């Protein structure tokens, strides 16, 4: 890297800048929009010069959407809370079930293990709409419709295969002999799993968990069909911004900023793990 000529370095810098602008501009634009009123957003020609206002955020947080047609009640904060509950619980449950399962699939080849693992992966192939309608009927009968438990259960379709398959790869990358060495030193397989396998696969588990969290957070159809207003996550709740009196761009922008904030913060915080996780192969002993 240090041997690159100044020209190469300059070009590399330019390419990086372009990439950053390309990916960051929409986020920047949304943030700017969220501090504007609908009028300033829609004016022609567009301008970045405006007097910032907090009324969009205020409307979201108080739950009162003031439009030309009157005051509309929205439950954005509640939706946000639902998103947090659903995503966090789903990922937690998936990790609890998926990580030991991934370890088992990675370490113990038993008859049909590949088939079971593949079946779990195939949940990701099926179009969600295909299973949703029958599922909705079952959920009605079972009393699971419109409950957190029911939704978290369905969200396993998203999180579990993802975590299982990513984490399995990380476990497979750890030399079994590292664990063998630990077991020979007088430890049970469970303490080997806890003390050796888990920490070594840690970055991978973090990366898989994060990815699963983002997928769960972004999910739309499951919640649309299976949840009513009080259990809806932001993705579905955002529909409320399309009102009779027009689309509330300012509030939508503010809503987006609030709803991407957790995932963005998490990604930034866990960046180190993601990078570490992706480069695990290069440094493992």
């Amino acid at each position, binding site marked *: 890297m240090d041997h690159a000529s100044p020209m190469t370095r300059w070009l590399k810098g330019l390419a990086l800048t372009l990439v950053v602008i390309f990916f960051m501009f929409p986020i920047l634009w949304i943030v700017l929009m969220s501090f504007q009123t609908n009028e300033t957003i829609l004016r022609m020609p567009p301008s970045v010069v405006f007097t910032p206002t907090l009324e969009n955020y205020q409307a979201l947080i108080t739950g009162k959407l003031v439009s030309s047609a009157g005051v509309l009640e929205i439950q954005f904060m509640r939706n946000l809370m639902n998103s947090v509950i659903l995503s966090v619980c789903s990922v937690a449950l998936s990790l609890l079930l998926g990580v030991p399962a991934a370890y088992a699939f990675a370490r113990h080849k038993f008859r049909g293990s590949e088939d079971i693992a593949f079946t779990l992966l195939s949940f990701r192939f099926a179009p969600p709409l295909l299973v949703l309608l029958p599922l909705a009927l079952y959920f009605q009968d079972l009393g699971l419709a419109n409950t957190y438990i029911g939704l978290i259960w369905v969200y396993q379709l998203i999180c579990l295969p993802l975590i299982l398959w990513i984490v399995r790869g990380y476990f497979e990358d750890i030399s079994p*002999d590292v664990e063998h*060495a630990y077991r*020979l*030193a*007088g430890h049970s397989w469970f303490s080997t799993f806890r003390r050796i396998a888990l920490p070594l696969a840690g970055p991978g588990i973090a990366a898989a968990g994060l990815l699963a969290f983002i997928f769960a957070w972004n999910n739309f159809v499951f919640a649309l069909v299976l949840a009513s207003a009080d259990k809806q996550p932001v993705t579905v709740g955002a529909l409320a911004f399309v009102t009779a009196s027009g689309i509330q761009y300012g509030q939508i922008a503010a809503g987006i900023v609030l709803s991407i904030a957790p995932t963005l913060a998490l990604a930034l915080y866990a960046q180190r793990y993601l990078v570490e996780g992706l480069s695990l192969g290069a440094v*493992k*002993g």
Partner: protein
Amino acid sequence: MSAPALELDRVSKIYGAKAARPVRAVDAVSMSVAKGEIVALLGSSGCGKTSTLRMVAGFETVSEGAVRIAGREVNRVAPAKRNVAMAFEGYSLYPPLTVRENIAFALKSARLPREEVARRVAEIAHLLEIEPILDRYPASISGGQQQRASLGRALIREADLHLLDEPMGQLEPALRALLRGRIKHFVKERGLTAVLVTHDQTEANALADRIAVMEGGVLQQFASPAELKDRPANLFTGTFIGEPPMNVFQAQARAEGDALRLGLGEGVALDYPAAGFEPAVRETILKRGRVTLGVRPHAVRLDPAGAPAEVAANQWLGDQSHIAASFAGGTLVTVEHDRARLRPGDRIGVRFEPADLHVFDGETGAALSHGGRAA
């Protein structure tokens, strides 16, 4: 007399037992290792030596037979409860720990006093020449250093059995030679029992009291290095042990008066007077008819009056000449300690003393005689 440190009783490892073609990676291997003994499992890759070692450690289930450590059958005992230490071929150091912590790990788990741990780590580090890297992490040191750290982690323990899987494969030759001596001394001094797996016969000869030669999952011979060399049990061991490998010729034996005539290819015949072979051995050889003759390259004598051969190549290796010659329709290799002035095409005569002849059954390869005496 206490129980042997390790006893294998007709141990087999079968992979895919329910598959159409089960693979017997280890086939009914029986051997017994006395306490304080160093034993090498020697063989080419895929011969079952590592599978055997892993069954002893407990990472492979035993398909048939029994493994006993210090008199206790351990077939169903967890690796943690076998009191066995192992150095892995792939090093398998714990990446988040330094070399020092890796080596001290088992002792710390056993809650030994801190001073004793420090003293023993220092001793092992000195032995293996890894003092400068004790505080480095496994990812930042070379393969050879990791291997020594892994070896240290195994040797520091006071286990019933030390299993060493290719313990020195990654080391430079000079260091390897030095460490062989030191490790042997260390193991012997402490009365440890070690089983090492290697494909390097020099290493096996240098370290082991006895060597178990394996091929195709079958134990071919289990004997001291000297015996393996002088009295190979079969053709495989005969040709496997020794560098350069033993010369082998098919021969037809018949009586020529009192003498034993061994007819090789292309009309070459070797006559041996009755005194060269014990009468019973001579009988057996004559009864078999078709035998395989083995002569170690070091034992081939150059003698103008001997059987004719033609030099095909002559290599000077710095301390010895390896001369390859076409002889009786095959190739013969001989080692001379002087720089032989022979060129390809030169005609020479060769002679094999009865004392240097190994005779194997032409069909089964089982040894019939060594140096004229019964095998």
